[in-house]
C-alpha cells in the first residue's frame, strides 16, 4: 500500500498549457510538501502545508498554486507552463519534528515542449 502517491507519473504538455499534479498520503502525517528536482538532481522546496494551512511558500512564480483540501491531500496546479518548468516534482509528508525526515512520493516527471 503506497504511503505517498502522486498522479500522474509522467506529464508531457505544450508551453502555455495549465496542468495539475495530485498527491495523497495515507500515513496520517500533518505536514505535506512540494519539492522540485531539476536535471542536476537538485531538490528545492516549493511549498509546505501543515494541516491544510500554508506554512512555507518559497520564491516560486505565481503560476504555481498549491491546494490542500484536507491534510491527506496536496495538489499543485501550474498555469501557463514554460520550458523551464520541466523537472521532476516530488510530494513529501512528515510527522513530528525534523528527526523523522520526509516520506517522498515517486515523483511526477513533467516535460514541457
Amino acid at each position: 500500500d503506497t504511503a505517498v502517491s502522486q498522479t500522474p507519473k509522467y506529464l508531457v504538455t505544450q508551453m502555455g498549457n495549465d496542468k495539475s499534479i495530485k498527491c495523497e498520503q495515507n500515513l496520517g502525517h500533518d505536514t505535506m510538501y512540494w519539492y522540485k528536482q531539476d536535471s542536476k538532481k537538485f531538490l528545492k522546496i516549493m511549498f509546505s502545508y501543515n494541516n491544510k494551512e500554508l506554512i512555507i511558500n518559497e520564491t516560486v512564480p505565481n503560476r504555481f498554486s498549491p491546494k490542500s483540501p484536507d491534510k491527506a491531500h496536496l495538489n499543485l496546479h501550474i498555469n501557463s507552463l514554460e520550458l523551464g518548468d520541466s523537472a521532476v516534482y516530488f510530494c513529501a509528508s512528515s510527522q513530528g519534528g525534523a528527526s523523522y525526515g520526509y516520506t517522498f512520493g515517486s515523483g511526477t516527471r513533467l516535460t514541457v515542449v
Partner: protein
Amino acid sequence: QKEVEQDPGPLSVPEGAIVSLNCTYSNSAFQYFMWYRQYSRKGPELLMYTYSSGNKEDGRFTAQVDKSSKYISLFIRDSQPSDSATYLCAMSEQGSGTYKYIFGTGTRLKVLA
C-alpha cells in the same frame, strides 16, 4: 554559493569497498542532518538522521557530523551493487514547527560487481 555543496560524482567503486560520501555547508545554524538514498526514477528515501555533532551507525552505514568544520559524511562499508544510487544530504536549522530541509545536489554512486 549554494548553502549545501556535494560532489556530484559519479563515484565508481568495486564491490566490497568502503565508500565515503561528503557534504559541506555554509550555514552554521544547521543542526539536523540527514542522508537520503535515491534510486533512478524513484523518490528519495531516508537512510540516516543525526542531530548536531557526532557519529551514528546503522548496519553498514555510518553518518558523521563535524559542525566545527561544517562537514558531514556518510560511510558505507562492504558496498554492494544494490547500493548504486544517488545519495543526497539534507540539513535543517529547526527541529520542530515550521522547518524545511535544504538538500545537496546528490552524489551518484556506482558499485561494480
